[in-house]
C-alpha cells in the first residue's frame, strides 16, 4: 500500500465537446476547448511549475510561476489563465523562463521561514517542491528586511508578524507561512460557497483574513476543510498532521455521516488515521467535504467506546463484562425463551442505517430466517418511509431519480422541507455553485434557513405554516393547471392520460387555489403563483426535499404531490430535473434496498409474493413467514400490550431519535430482552440487557448506498477495536440462535444480494473496485449502473397521477398549546449526536437551543439565552432560548442532537397515514420561563447514570 497521489491538473476540466489540437514542447495534444495550457500540458504529462493554481478552483494568475512562451506571441503568459487555441506552439522551459521563475521563487522564499525540517508540511509542501523544481539555490535578498516571518526584527516588535490562530479545533492558521496565493480564499468561495475568507490589505500588506480579521472560529467559517486542502504550504494545516506527521499510505473509503456519501482517502500511519481527505474522483462529492466527514472521526477512538460485551438480568443492575460467547449464549437463551413463552412473533430487530448494506442484509436475514418472522424495521421508518411509498406508487421506484451531478444542468431548484446547508452540506455547496451561475431557487420552509438567504443566495421563499405542505404543493399544481403551464406532450406520452385528467380537474378547483388556501398555509398567493410559473417555465426544474416533507401525518401525500408536480411539468427523465429526496443517514437508502422493511424483501418486493419468497427460501434454506411484520411504532405498541418482548437493535438509538420518549421508555421497559449493538452506551442501552460492542466504518469492509442510489465501498483501515466487525457479530449471534450463516468476507454477502435482487445483479466488489461506484439499477440492461432514472418512460410503465387532498393534522394549536414546534438539524452535529458529541464539533453546538420569534418571546417575558420550559401534550423539557426572526411568529424550532434536552419527549404519537413515519415536524407547544431542568429531565438523567454503571471485574481468589 502507498499514499494515493491525485494529479493536480492546475485548472478545472472543460466541459466543451469541441476539441482543440496544439503543440506543447514538441508534442501534439488534443484537449477540449476552454482548457488551459497548464492543464493541457499536465494531461500530456508535463507539470508546469505553479503555486496559485489548483484544479479545484478557477485560474487566478497571481503567482507568476507558470509562465510559458508561445511562438508568435509577445511576453511570457501565465499558462493557467491562457486557454488553448488550435495550432499554438508552446514551450514550457527556456532560459528566459528559467530565469523568471527562479526570480519569482527567490522573492517568495525571502519572506518565508526556513524551518523546513520541523515544519508540519515537510514532505507535502508545494513551495518546497517548486523551489526544487526551479532550481533555487540561494536567496540574495537575505532575511533582514521587512518580513512576516519573525516576531521581532532588529530588537523591536514586528508589526507584520502575526501569531498562529489555533481557534479552530481541527486546523491551525500560521500566517508566517502564507504566500498569499489565495487558494484558500477561492476554495471557500468557489468550492464551499461560504465566502468566509478574504485577502485584506494590498501588496506586501496582503494577508488571509477570516471575515474582518476575526479568528477562524469566530468568523463565518464552517470548517469544511476546503481551504486546508487547497493550501500549498503549512499555513493551514490539520492539527492531526502537526501532531502525528505525514501519512504513509491511504485507502479510499466512504464517509459514515449523511446521505451525500462523500468519498474520502483515509490517510494513515500504520493503523492510525492521520487525516481524512476528500477524494476528487468521488462522484458524490467531487473532492469536497464538510466538517463532519473531514474532521469529526475522533469518536472512533473515544474513551467512552465500549469494547467488551456486557450483560445483565435487569436494567436496574450494573453491567457485567463477559466474553463474546457468554453474551451470545445469554442473548440467544433469552430470545428463545421469549419465543417459547409468547410465540414466534414476540421478537424482532432494527437494522442500522449507519451500518453497511451487507450488515443490514444479514440482520434482516437473521430476523426473517432465524427468528422466523418479519418484525424487522429500520430508521427509515422515522425519516423517509413516505418517500419509498410515494415514489413507488407514482413512478415505480422507491428512490430519488437523479445523480448529484445533475444539479449542474438545473435551471430552477425547488427545495421543500430541507436545509442542505446544514444537513447535506456538500450537496449544498454544489447547489450553491450552480446558483452563482444563475439558476433560480425556490424554498418552501417554515424557517428562513441558510438556503433562503446567504452570500450569493437569495431564494423566493414560501414560509408556510408547519403541517400545510399538501395544501401548498397542490396549490402550485393548481396554478400550473389553471394557467395553462402543463407540459401536455410529456404527460400524453409518459403518463396515464385519464388519471391525469381526473387529477387536473381536482387541483383546478377554486378551493385549492393559492388565494383560497392562504388562510391555512400563511403563504402569500402572489409569491406562490410566481414560484409555480418559475418552476413550470424556467427550464430544467429539479425538486430536492427532506424530512420537512416526510415527517408529517400527510408525509406520503406530499411525496405524491411532489411527484405529480414533476410529471405535470415534464421534469423527469433527463439531467437537471427530477425528484430528489435528500436521505438522512449514510446508508438509509441502502438499508431500505436491503429489505429492512417488515413488508418487503430486498429489492422492494412484498413478502407475500410466493415466487420471490421461494427464491430466498431456497438460498437461505429456511421457510419464511409470508405475513408483514411490525413497524417500529407498532413494535412499541405491541410491547406495551405484552405481545412483543425482545428486540435486537443494531446501530440506532431509538430512545433518543423516536418520538414521544415516554412512550418509547414504556415500551422498552416492558420488554424482557433488549440487545443493543452499538459503539457507545447510548440512550436505548439504558433499557438494554445485552450490549454487543460495535465497530466503526474504519474497521470493516462493506458498502454504503447514498441518496443518489450510489453504491460505494467502505474499506477497512484498522483492526476492529472491539474484536469483530458488525457483520461478524450478527453471524455469531445467529449461530448461537441456531441459524447458521457462512461468509468469509462481506464481498460474499454482496454476491448473495446480487443473486437475489434484480436491481443489483451487476453489482460486485470487483466492479466497484473497477468503476469506483455504481448507481442501482445495475444489471444486464445497465451494466455500469443508472445515474438517471425514468429516461424515456417510467419504471412502473405510465406515470401515475394521484389525487392529494389536504387534511389538516390532528395535532392542533389551542389556548393551552398555542405555538407550533418544528425540529431540524445543525451542521456540526449529526442525528442523535452519538458520534459528533464525542468530537471537537461540540465547540460549535454544545446544546440544543429553542428558536423563538421576538414577538412570541416578548409576550412570554423570555430574553435571549434564558432557560425556558417547552411543553406539549406529550411531555415537557427545558432548554435555552435563542431569539431570532428566522422563525415566523407562532412557530418555534429546535434541534435534537443532545440527550439532556431530549426534544423528543415533546413530540407526539401522530404519524404518516401510509407508513407510520412520525410527525416530528408539527407539535403544539407552550413556552414559559424556567429556572432549569424539568423534573422529568432530572429523573431521566438519574436513571441514565444508574443504568450505565459497569460492575468492576473481580479477580478470582487464589
Amino acid at each position, binding site marked *: 500500500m502507498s499514499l494515493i497521489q491525485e494529479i493536480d491538473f492546475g485548472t478545472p476540466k472543460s466541459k466543451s465537446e469541441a476539441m482543440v489540437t496544439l503543440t506543447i514542447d514538441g508534442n501534439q495534444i488534443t484537449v477540449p476547448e476552454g482548457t488551459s495550457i497548464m492543464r493541457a500540458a499536465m494531461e500530456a504529462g508535463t507539470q508546469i511549475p505553479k503555486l496559485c493554481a489548483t484544479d479545484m478552483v478557477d485560474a487566478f494568475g497571481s503567482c507568476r510561476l507558470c509562465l510559458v512562451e508561445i511562438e508568435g506571441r509577445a511576453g511570457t503568459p501565465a499558462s493557467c489563465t491562457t486557454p488553448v487555441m488550435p495550432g499554438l506552439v508552446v514551450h514550457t522551459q527556456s532560459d528566459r523562463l528559467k530565469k523568471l521563475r527562479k526570480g519569482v521563487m527567490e522573492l517568495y522564499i525571502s519572506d518565508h521561514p526556513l524551518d523546513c525540517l520541523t515544519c508540519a508540511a515537510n514532505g507535502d509542501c508545494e513551495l518546497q517542491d517548486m523551489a526544487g523544481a526551479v532550481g533555487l539555490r540561494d536567496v540574495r535578498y537575505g532575511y533582514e528586511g521587512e518580513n512576516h516571518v519573525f516576531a521581532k526584527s532588529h530588537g523591536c516588535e514586528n508589526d507584520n508578524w502575526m501569531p498562529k490562530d489555533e481557534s479552530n479545533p481541527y486546523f491551525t492558521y500560521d500566517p508566517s507561512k502564507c504566500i498569499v496565493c489565495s487558494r484558500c480564499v477561492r476554495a471557500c468561495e468557489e468550492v464551499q460557497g461560504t465566502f468566509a475568507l478574504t485577502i485584506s490589505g494590498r501588496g506586501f500588506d496582503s494577508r488571509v483574513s477570516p471575515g474582518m480579521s476575526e479568528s477562524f472560529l469566530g468568523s463565518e467559517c464552517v470548517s469544511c476543510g476546503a481551504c486546508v486542502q487547497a493550501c500549498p504550504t503549512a499555513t493551514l494545516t490539520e492539527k492531526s498532521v502537526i501532531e502525528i506527521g505525514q501519512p504513509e499510505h491511504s485507502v479510499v473509503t466512504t464517509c459514515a455521516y449523511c446521505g451525500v456519501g462523500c468519498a474520502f482517502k483515509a490517510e494513515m500511519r500504520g493503523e492510525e488515521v492521520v487525516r481524512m481527505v476528500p477524494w476528487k474522483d468521488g462522484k458524490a462529492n467531487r473532492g469536497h467535504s464538510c466538517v463532519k466527514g473531514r474532521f469529526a472521526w475522533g469518536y472512533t477512538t473515544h474513551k467512552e467506546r465500549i469494547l467488551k460485551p456486557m450483560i445483565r438480568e435487569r436494567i436496574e443492575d450494573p453491567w457485567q463484562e463477559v466474553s463474546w460467547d457468554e453474551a451470545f449464549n445469554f442473548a440467544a437463551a433469552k430470545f428463545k425463551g421469549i419465543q417459547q413463552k409468547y410465540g414466534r*412473533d414476540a421478537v424482532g430487530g432494527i437494522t442500522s442505517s449507519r451500518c453497511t448494506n451487507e450488515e443490514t442484509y444479514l440482520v434482516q436475514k437473521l430476523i426473517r430466517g432465524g427468528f422466523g418472522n*418479519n*418484525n424487522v424495521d429500520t430508521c427509515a421508518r422515522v425519516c423517509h418511509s413516505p418517500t419509498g411509498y410515494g415514489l413507488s406508487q407514482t413512478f415505480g421506484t422507491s428512490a430519488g431519480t437523479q445523480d448529484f451531478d445533475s444539479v449542474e444542468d438545473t435551471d430552477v431548484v425547488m427545495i421543500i422541507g430541507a436545509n442542505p446547508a446544514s444537513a447535506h452540506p456538500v450537496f449544498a455547496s454544489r447547489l450553491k455553485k450552480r446558483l452563482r451561475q444563475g439558476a433560480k431557487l425556490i424554498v418552501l420552509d417554515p424557517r428562513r434557513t441558510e438556503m433562503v438567504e446567504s452570500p450569493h443566495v437569495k431564494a423566493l421563499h414560501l414560509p408556510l405554516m408547519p403541517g400545510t405542505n399538501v395544501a401548498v404543493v397542490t396549490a402550485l399544481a393548481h396554478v400550473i393547471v389553471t394557467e395553462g403551464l402543463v407540459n401536455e406532450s410529456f404527460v400524453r406520452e409518459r403518463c396515464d392520460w385519464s388519471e391525469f385528467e381526473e387529477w387536473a380537474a*381536482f387541483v383546478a378547483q377554486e378551493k385549492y387555489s393559492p388565494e383560497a388556501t392562504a388562510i391555512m398555509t400563511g403563504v402569500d398567493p402572489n409569491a406562490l403563483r410566481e414560484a409555480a410559473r418559475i418552476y413550470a417555465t424556467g427550464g430544467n426544474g429539479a425538486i430536492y426535499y427532506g424530512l420537512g416533507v416526510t415527517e408529517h*401525518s*400527510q408525509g*406520503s*401525500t406530499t411525496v405524491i404531490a411532489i411527484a405529480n408536480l414533476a410529471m405535470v411539468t415534464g421534469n423527469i427523465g433527463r439531467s437537471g430535473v427530477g425528484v430528489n429526496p435528500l436521505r438522512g443517514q449514510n446508508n438509509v437508502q441502502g438499508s431500505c434496498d436491503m429489505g429492512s422493511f*417488515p*413488508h418487503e424483501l430486498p429489492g422492494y418486493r*412484498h413478502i*407475500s409474493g410466493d415466487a420471490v419468497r421461494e427464491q430466498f427460501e431456497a438460498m437461505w434454506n429456511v421457510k419464511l413467514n409470508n*405475513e*408483514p*411484520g*411490525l*413497524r417500529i411504532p*407498532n413494535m412499541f*405498541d*405491541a410491547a*406495551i*400490550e405484552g*405481545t412483543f418482548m425482545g428486540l435486537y437493535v443494531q446501530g440506532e438509538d431509538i430512545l433518543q431519535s423516536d418520538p414521544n420518549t415516554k412512550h418509547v421508555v414504556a415500551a422498552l421497559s416492558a420488554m424482557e430482552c433488549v440487545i443493543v449493538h452499538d459503539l457507545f452506551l447510548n440512550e436505548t442501552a439504558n433499557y438494554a440487557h445485552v450490549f454487543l460492542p460495535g465497530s466503526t466504518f474504519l474497521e470493516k469492509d462493506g458498502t454504503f448506498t447514498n441518496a443518489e442510489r450510489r453504491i460505494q465501498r467502505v474499506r477497512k483501515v484498522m483492526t476492529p477495536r472491539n474484536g469483530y466487525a458488525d457483520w461478524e457479530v450478527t453471524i455469531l449471534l445467529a449461530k448461537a440462535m441456531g441459524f447458521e450463516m457462512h461468509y468469509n468476507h462481506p464481498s460474499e454477502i454482496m454476491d448473495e444480494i446480487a443473486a437475489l435482487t434484480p436491481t443489483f445483479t451487476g453489482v460486485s466488489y470487483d466492479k466497484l473496485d473497477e468503476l469506483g461506484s455504481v448507481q442501482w439499477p445495475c444489471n444486464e440492461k445497465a451494466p455500469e449502473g443508472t445515474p438517471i432514472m425514468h429516461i424515456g418512460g417510467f419504471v412502473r410503465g405510465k406515470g401515475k397521477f394521484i*389525487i392529494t*387532498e389536504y*387534511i389538516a393534522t390532528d395535532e392542533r394549536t389551542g389556548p393551552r398549546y398555542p405555538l407550533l414546534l418544528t425540529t431540524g438539524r445543525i451542521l456540526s452535529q449529526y442525528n442523535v449526536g452519538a458520534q459528533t458529541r464525542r468530537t471537537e464539533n461540540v465547540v460549535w453546538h454544545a446544546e440544543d437551543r429553542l428558536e423563538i420569534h421576538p414577538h412570541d418571546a416578548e409576550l412570554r417575558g423570555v430574553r435571549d439565552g434564558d432557560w425556558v420550559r417547552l411543553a406539549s401534550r406529550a411531555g415537557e423539557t427545558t432548554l435555552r432560548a435563542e431569539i431570532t426572526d428566522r422563525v415566523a411568529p407562532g412557530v418555534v424550532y429546535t434541534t435534537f442532537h443532545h440527550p439532556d434536552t431530549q426534544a423528543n419527549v415533546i413530540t407526539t*404519537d401522530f404519524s404518516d*397515514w*401510509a*407508513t*407510520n413515519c412520525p410527525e416530528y415536524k408539527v407539535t403544539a407547544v407552550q413556552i414559559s420561563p424556567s429556572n432549569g431542568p424539568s423534573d422529568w429531565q432530572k429523573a431521566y438523567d438519574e436513571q441514565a447514570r444508574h443504568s450505565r454503571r459497569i460492575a468492576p471485574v473481580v479477580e478470582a481468589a487464589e
Partner: protein
Amino acid sequence: MSSSPDKLVYMANQIGKFFQSQGHDRAVPGISEHIWKFWDPRMRKQIFAHLDTGGAGLDPDVREALQKLKQQA
C-alpha cells in the same frame, strides 16, 4: 391514543381519509389493500375483533374495506 383499538381505529380512518377523494369504488379496495400490505397479522386480528364488536368509530368506507378484508382472510 394509548389503548390499542382506539389507535388502530385512528390509523385505519387516517388511511381512509387519503383514499376518500378517489370515490367510494376505488377507496374501499384501496384501503383494504393498504391494510393487507402493511399491517402485521396481530394488528389486523385486533381491528377485526373490534369490527365484530360493532366497530365503533370506523368511517363507513373503512368499515366496508375491513369487512371485505376479513372475508378474504
